[in-house]
């Protein structure tokens, strides 16, 4: 048994139906504070659905989501961000016509200046400074005045991470952060994730099992919408069922 304060996020019997299709069934997991946890599974395992439930994009059909003991099952999507859960999307999701700096600045502003109508945004220079600092930390310091749509794919993914960090999240959710990246970009992104995970709790969804084995401390394996296994990378490597699922898929 882990102490309650060790658990930052928990799902209790979470299920999700789309019409008649049950994408998730009775998933109960406790995510530990300060750990890097990866959610893995073959295609169609329900990883993305689970991610969307965790990040507040879809409410669960059944079960509960508890963040630091608070029930967020029925909360609206933006409340998740305000509670301290930030996410980056699988498909790059930035504000394309705004500069990289403004992308991050708007994300920082969400924390405390949501409905400030009558002062100039330049009246809050600390937001610009923080945006520049965050951009530098993800390696985009010299690209800050470029429009987001002019950035390379890998740079846009890094920009997303900077935006996710902008609200100083307690929990960072990353959906396939290396999707569509070149091997070199993938290496850089993995390095970045490792640095981020040193300072906060990170949960990431990944399709490529090899990639996360050496990186994360906990693994959650989903299969056909159900929890198949949970444990350290060594536990998972030794798990026969996991091996069968992955090898079974690889045999085709």
């Amino acid at each position: 048994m882990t102490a309650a304060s060790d658990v930052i996020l928990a799902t209790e019997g979470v299920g999700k139906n789309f019409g008649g299709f049950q994408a998730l069934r009775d998933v109960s997991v406790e995510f530990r504070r300060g750990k890097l946890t990866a959610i893995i599974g073959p295609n169609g395992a329900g990883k993305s659905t689970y991610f969307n439930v965790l990040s507040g994009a879809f409410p669960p059909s059944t079960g509960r989501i508890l963040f630091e003991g608070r029930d967020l099952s029925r909360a609206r999507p933006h409340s998740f961000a305000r509670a301290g859960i930030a996410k980056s999307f699988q498909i790059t999701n930035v504000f394309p016509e705004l500069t990289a700096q403004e992308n991050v600045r708007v994300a920082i502003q969400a924390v405390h200046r949501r409905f400030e109508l009558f002062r100039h945004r330049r009246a809050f220079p600390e937001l610009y400074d923080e945006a520049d600092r965050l951009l530098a930390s993800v390696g985009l310091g010299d690209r800050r005045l470029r429009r987001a749509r002019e950035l390379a794919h890998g740079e846009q993914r890094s920009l997303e991470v900077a935006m996710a960090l902008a609200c100083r999240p307690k929990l960072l959710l990353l959906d396939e952060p290396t999707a569509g990246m070149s091997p070199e970009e993938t290496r850089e992104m993995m390095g970045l994730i490792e640095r981020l995970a040193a300072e906060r709790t990170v949960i990431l969804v990944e399709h490529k099992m090899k990639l996360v084995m050496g990186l994360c401390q906990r693994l959650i394996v989903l299969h056909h919408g159900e929890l198949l296994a949970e444990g350290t990378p060594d536990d998972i490597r030794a798990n026969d069922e996991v091996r069968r699922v992955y090898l079974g898929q690889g045999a085709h």
Partner: protein
Amino acid sequence: MTVLDPPQSTARRWLGHVARHRVAATLGFLVLFPLIVPYEALAANILVLGLYALGFNLLFGYTGLLSFGHAAFLGSGAYGCGIALVHFGVGWFGAILIGTALATLVAAVIGFLAIRTRGIYFAMVTLALSMCVYYAFYQMEPLTGGENGLRGVNLQTIGVFGFQLSFLNPTVKYYVLLAFVGVAIWLFSRLLASPFGAVLEAVRENENRARACGYDVAATKLVAFVISGAFCGLAGALNALHLSIVPIETLHYTTSGQVVMMALLGGMGTFFGPFVGAATFLLLQDVLSVLTQHWQLYVGIVFILFVLFFPRGIWGSLLDRFGPR
């Protein structure tokens, strides 16, 4: 960082100044505007409908919501002002405030219902609700004059700080209207530059991302909708004083369509575009309606050509071509 500016063309530098001092530039232009327009009543038309397009553009160009019901706000503003003046003997300044307040209220109700929908459904819901407003005013004949419109919004003189100005003098009228439009333009610019203006752009660019950042997208849209309605309501109130009558057509959906055309002609999402669009539309109407009774056909052709070949509108294309980078 040492970034060397590339050599700039005169046009680019000039437009750069205009963009940086957009309020001063717009006001300066509007002060001189009557001198270059055939007659002052047309200048006043462009001024008032330019404000209408400006308010519409807050929603369309800056928040990314296409409403087909903005006639409801122009109309409520006009009727609110006119009814206060004609039936209740309220002073001209109070009447303008009442008109604007009524439009804001109508915008709050319509906005509350409409922001639950998106895209084409949003356009349809705003259209349907604005037609409800049309019929409501149409039916309240004792108050609104029904299909004849509200007549008798006559303002002979207005008192400003103890001075009596003749509102019948078209030059005086233009500059009185400009005083209101000028304040509105200044407020509008402040709003766009504010942190809230940044949220509007974020919602336009990517709703999901804005939500993931922690912004309440629905609340943001509603606030934008209400503010947009308030600007259009002020335009309506000024229009009532300018025309001395509120035609029932002010509330008709064709008036909603007109503002979409103006915004697209001028350049959606640009500060000065709505005024350029209003000027282009009304000048075309003015010139063509003398030559042919099928003037709308030609305005339509111009509009289609613009949408096909200059989707950023007149001002937007100029900024793209010569504007600051």
